[in-house]
């Protein structure tokens, strides 16, 4: 029934491969119909690696790439070297931002199902990564996120209404409908314009960081990729250039186990972790329990301090799990067991922080439910005010002429001509 990875289908090194061909193709441990059983995944409890000096030599963190930094134990306790000892206010902000993120995702997903927008992507289960990371940075540090770090915007206090208007491509959309939903751009919140092309922003973030260093500014850059997109050349460029020029940046790999339908082993191959990719480049490397917001916060703080003080870049792998489908276009039950996400042994980041707050004596189930309810209501209200400005299929569509704008600073003659043609022929 439940198969441990590589147990039956995959031959051992030196044995012959699947289908009587020697070509080895890795497969995930469980497929639809299997009963997921992650007992082979070790959940480190005591062996949290030590916290070295943030200006240590890169090789002193080589081991961290193979371990897992954790602060929150499953019983709610926060322990170990990496415990950031956040104030209760900070903890409450973390919880609230994660819950707002989840509530927004929920709402937007449903609204997409109702045809209000073309597409949506949730970050369910990964809220600790974005929120915890954002809290540990300065708001002026530039992040280069993927489509699953909306929590950064929420943590930094961006207008949720504007975010929703972007998804709705309506008259309130700051991007004038040019981009598909969730590809936000919020320079004022240190949130780089998200590209639909995976990986490309990694090396751009390194360039941004190099510019910070060049200008003797204090800022750093923090770039994100999913584990799947680490296979793009840009990931390699980023690690290499960050190392060569000691760019003040953080390179984050969010390993949520899945890249659409491909499990992480397709990108990983026989490597032991994604953090370990950085070792050979001479980068500092940390691997962190991405469902433990205190660990994410602590690792980010460490890496940010290292970068800001001239110590160079850190590669952080956030080990987490994509609880839902890849996007509204996806149905994960086609390629993994329905209950895979429940079997995943690292729990849910919100539940884990909740338990911690309860263990601190400042929180209980009722308060939690009330907060969940108020998040949901707030999101509902914001959504209503956003949708009042239109939606993709509705009447109050963005102005079509905006399509000709911002191709260049000054529209060249041929674009003006096309704009006139558009007006004559279609308007």
């Amino acid at each position, binding site marked *: 029934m439940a198969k441990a990875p590589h147990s039956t289908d995959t031959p051992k090194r030196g044995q012959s491969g699947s289908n009587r061909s020697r070509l080895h*193709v890795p497969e995930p441990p469980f497929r639809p119909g299997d009963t997921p059983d992650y007992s082979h995944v070790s959940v480190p409890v005591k062996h949290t690696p030590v916290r070295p000096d943030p200006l240590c030599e890169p090789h002193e963190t080589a081991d961290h790439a193979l371990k897992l930094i954790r602060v929150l134990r499953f019983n709610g306790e926060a322990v170990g070297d990496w415990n950031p000892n956040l104030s209760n206010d900070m903890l409450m902000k973390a919880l609230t931002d994660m819950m707002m993120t989840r509530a927004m995702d929920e709402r937007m997903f449903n609204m997409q199902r109702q045809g209000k927008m073309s597409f949506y992507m949730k970050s369910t289960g990964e809220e600790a990564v974005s929120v915890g990371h954002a809290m540990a940075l300065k708001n002026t540090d530039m992040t280069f996120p993927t489509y699953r770090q909306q929590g950064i915007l929420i943590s930094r206090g961006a207008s949720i209404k504007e975010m929703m208007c972007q998804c709705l491509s309506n008259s309130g959309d700051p991007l004038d409908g040019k981009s*598909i939903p969730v590809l936000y751009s919020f320079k004022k919140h240190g949130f780089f314009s998200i590209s*639909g092309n995976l990986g490309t922003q990694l090396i751009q973030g390194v360039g941004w960081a190099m510019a910070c260093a060049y200008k003797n500014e204090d800022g750093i850059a923090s770039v994100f990729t999913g584990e799947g997109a680490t296979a793009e050349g840009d990931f390699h460029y980023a690690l290499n250039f960050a190392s060569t020029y000691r760019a003040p940046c953080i390179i984050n790999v969010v390993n949520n186990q899945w890249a659409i339908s*491909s499990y992480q082993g397709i*990108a990983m191959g026989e490597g032991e972790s994604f953090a370990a990719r950085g070792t050979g480049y001479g980068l500092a490397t940390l691997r962190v329990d991405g469902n433990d917001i205190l660990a994410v916060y602590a690792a980010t703080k460490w890496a940010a301090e290292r970068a800001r003080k001239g110590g160079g870049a850190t590669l952080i792998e956030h080990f987490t799990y994509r609880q839902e489908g890849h996007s509204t276009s996806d149905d994960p039950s086609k390629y993994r067991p329905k209950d895979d996400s429940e079997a995943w042994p690292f729990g849910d980041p919100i539940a884990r922080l909740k338990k911690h707050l309860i263990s601190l004596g400042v929180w209980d189930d009722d308060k939690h439910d009330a907060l969940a309810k108020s998040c949901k209501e707030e999101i509902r209200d914001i959504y209503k005010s956003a949708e009042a400005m239109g939606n993709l299929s509705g009447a109050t569509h*963005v102005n079509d002429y905006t*399509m000709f704008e911002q191709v260049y600073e000054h529209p060249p003659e041929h674009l003006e001509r096309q704009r006139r043609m558009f007006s004559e022929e279609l308007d």
Partner: protein
Amino acid sequence: MAEPETKNMTMIEAIRDAMDVTMSQNSDVLVFGEDVGYFGGVFRCTAGLQEKHGLHRCFDTPISEGGIVGIAIGMAANGLRPVAEIQFADYIYPAYDQIASEAARLRYRSNGDFTCPLTIRTPVGGGIYGGTTHSQSPEALFTHIAGLKTVIPSNPYDAKGMLIEAIEDNDPVLFLEPKRLYNGPFNGDPHAPAKSWKGHPLGEVPTGHYGIELGKARKITEGDDVTILTYGTMVWVAEATAAKVGISADILDLRSLLPLDLDAIVESVKKTGRCLIMHEATRTSGFGAELSALVTEHCFYHLEAPIERVTGWDTPYPHAQEWAYFPGQKRVANALKRIMKDV
């Protein structure tokens, strides 16, 4: 000879069937790409192939378009016939170097010592609210590359025959799939009810092996007033618009852009004396430019009106303004009227 057995297929099914048929006949054919294995591809074009032919013949790759084409070149040079999928043509650029510098030139630079019989399949075109990064039509970036073939079917029948031909070709072929046609013809009107391939004669696809020579255009309608040169989704927009405008158009579905069926083009334009070119890609340096140049070069003394191009605007493909960007029936009709105005 008995008529070959046929089956009604969508374009997705026809494409899948082309791979299935060649994989069944020839163990040198492998299929791979992002999410193509167990899952069967985000557009389902490879669904079932892994189960039927085995994990080692249809498998997932890392998200690395350059790597995908790179291994395909090595496999092709080593005697296989790889069929690589690029999930969207918008994501083909990381593989541009491997395609243009390597796949297309391996035969030349080695003077035939090594060859590269590979096929790259990738969906192109808009119409699904995919925005700047799920709607592009980059064919012109490939028709400039000597050593490569670039083809684009517009219906299930052609799709299967051309894909089989591409896989069996001894040179690299870029096989572009107009995603808006996957499930049915599309006449350019987003408000009209969606059509399916069911009942359409071009959805009747032989179940066995057949090839369609790459480099031959298909005449869609015979006409005397004007020649329309187009391919992919726009073929259906052309046909619908010409019918609506009530013009007698010689519509050529080019199918293969490189090599190109220049004879068919010249013959038609010499007959009609007028020419409209249509594509979804941005206008400047689009493939329509080459078509226009060729028509001028070969039919100059027969032309009675300026050649017109109806194309995407010279902007990225916007999301919400999709139907303002898409070169739809209105713009085609206007162009036809301009072309015909001094008849």
